[in-house]
């Protein structure tokens, strides 16, 4: 975990290299792409989607203006979740001297993964399937990803609309992890680690669960908007990162109160607002399914907020603002995989569970002694796990015929599938994260020096100060 001037310059070079690589590959692709007749995407699509081709006599899929409006709106909403939503939610929880470095995590990832997704991420996750494990690089640089619908994924919106909606999920997932390593991670180590994580953990996982041909999707695991892919994976990665990095200096002895709770509540509110895009947008069309997901999302969130608040009230004697805001986020997490498959009434139960479970989650970290600084694991890891399992309990075909019945609706098999999906995700995320961290630690280092940590990361990593 040493930190040398050399390495830093080396990293700047690497970052610049990434961009220049983009530049290089782009000139080729861009020219090739656009020189081809505009029909090119249409040609590519059937190859990637034999089922659709089989349904030939039907009219070709057409963009629906309402569905497209909803998905574009949803995409913008999910962007808002990462920055400023998550950036402020996390930023307010840190100490003043680390506020910018924490905000930087989210903002930088929004930029980095936006580019990664266009260049290779989308292709790995959703491109033509390779053995159920990963997408091919056929769609790298968005080659063949055009403005007509790809009915494999969404039949009434442009393929690029689906692509960019999914981009925002790829962006926020690593940003969620950053809550666990706030206030002590090197910027270069963070940047390299997260680029690797997005490529080697997130992209495959997204393929398994959502990609055509992905093995968990084929198996029938239900994950409406990303409980396993987004929340379990990031939460578990957060736990591992907290363990590998070790505690922040002063944990347990110094007073580390959040420096700006109004900022945190602002962030939580924007997360709630944006999550409608995340969950209801995952219907990929505007109508009944989106509406149902919207209603369950709001209901579970409200209930979880109240249940965390009441749990803390009973446990500690007073209801807190941070508690109700954290509970809301816990509810949003838990309803994510379930929102399109369950009734509003079931969503109340899911919310009730989420608030209590995640509150207990933040308490245990004191017992186990890891320093998950802003509780990424408690909220996303545990909340996501509860949500994925609850989907296996409460899912109902009466709500979504394309889904499945859960345990409480007479289908224990679905619950078993959900358990499998959860376990797979836990193990894959934990092992993968650990390996990547060790590699990055060896190559560029993970942790700032004690002197840098004491001075605060805003100054030591970024030469800035949050407030003057």
């Amino acid at each position, binding site marked *: 975990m040493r930190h040398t001037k050399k390495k830093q310059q080396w990293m700047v070079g690497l970052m610049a290299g990434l961009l220049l690589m983009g530049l290089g590959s782009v000139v080729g692709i861009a020219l090739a792409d656009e020189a081809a007749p505009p029909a090119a995407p249409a040609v590519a699509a059937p190859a990637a989607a034999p089922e659709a081709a089989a349904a030939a006599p039907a009219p070709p899929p057409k963009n629906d203006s309402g569905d497209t409006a909803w998905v574009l709106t949803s995409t913008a909403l999910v962007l808002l979740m990462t920055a400023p939503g998550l950036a402020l939610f996390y930023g307010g929880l840190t100490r003043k001297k680390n506020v910018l470095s924490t905000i930087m995590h989210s903002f930088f990832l929004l930029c980095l993964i936006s580019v990664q997704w266009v260049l290779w991420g989308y292709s790995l996750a959703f491109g033509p399937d390779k053995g159920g494990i990963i997408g091919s690089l056929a769609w790298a640089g968005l080659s063949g990803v055009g403005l007509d619908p790809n009915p494999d994924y969404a039949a009434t919106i442009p393929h690029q609309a689906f692509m960019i909606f999914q981009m925002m999920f790829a962006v926020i997932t690593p940003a969620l992890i950053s809550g666990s390593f706030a206030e002590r991670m090197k910027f270069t180590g963070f940047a390299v680690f997260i680029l690797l994580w997005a490529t080697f953990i997130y992209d495959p996982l997204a393929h398994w669960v959502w990609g055509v041909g992905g093995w968990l999707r084929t198996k029938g695991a239900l994950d409406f908007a990303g409980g396993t892919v987004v929340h379990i994976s990031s939460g578990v990665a957060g736990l591992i990162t907290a363990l590998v990095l070790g505690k922040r200096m002063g944990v347990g002895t110094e007073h580390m*109160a*959040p420096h700006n709770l109004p900022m945190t509540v602002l962030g939580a509110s924007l997360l709630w607002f944006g999550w409608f895009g995340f969950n209801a947008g995952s219907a990929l069309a505007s109508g009944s399914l989106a509406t149902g997901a919207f209603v369950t999302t709001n209901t579970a969130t409200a209930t979880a907020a109240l249940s965390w608040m009441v749990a803390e009230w009973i446990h500690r004697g007073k209801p807190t603002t941070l508690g109700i805001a954290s509970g809301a986020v816990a509810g949003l997490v838990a309803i994510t995989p379930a929102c399109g498959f369950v009734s509003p009434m079931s969503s109340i139960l899911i919310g009730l569970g989420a608030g209590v479970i995640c509150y207990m989650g933040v308490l245990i970290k004191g017992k186990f002694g890891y320093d998950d600084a802003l509780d990424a694991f408690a909220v996303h890891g545990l909340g996501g796990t509860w949500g994925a399992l609850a989907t296996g309990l409460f899912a109902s075909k009466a709500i979504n015929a394309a889904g499945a019945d859960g345990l409480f609706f007479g289908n224990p098999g679905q619950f078993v599938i959900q358990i499998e999906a959860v376990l797979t995700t836990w193990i894959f995320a934990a092992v993968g994260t650990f390996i990547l961290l060790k590699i990055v630690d060896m190559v560029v280092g993970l942790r700032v020096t004690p002197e840098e940590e004491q001075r605060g990361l805003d100054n030591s990593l970024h030469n800035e100060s949050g407030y003057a």
Partner: protein
Amino acid sequence: MKKIEAIIKPFKLDEVREALLELGVQGMTVTEVKGFGRQKGQTEVYRGAEYVVSFLPKIKLEVVVGAQLAPRVLETIVRTAKTGSIGDGKIFVSELQDVIRIRTGEKGESAI
């Protein structure tokens, strides 16, 4: 000349200031400080973890006055800043060698 430093409860500031004004005190300087003492600190709870914030917000009032006005200033502060409950604060009195008014360069008591 005396320098009188009083640590008081924040919400008492306006009352004390007005009383001093009536007494003829023409200026004072105020600093936001944190005090630690017999008064029990506040409990704060963040995500179930309890902290005791032992330093409480206080106001430090600095008044420089001539020696003859000092006793009445002290008495006035004690009277107006008192609530009777723990944490009302302290007054520290020390001797000042000189005072200069920057605007005019005046020195001594006339500079106050």
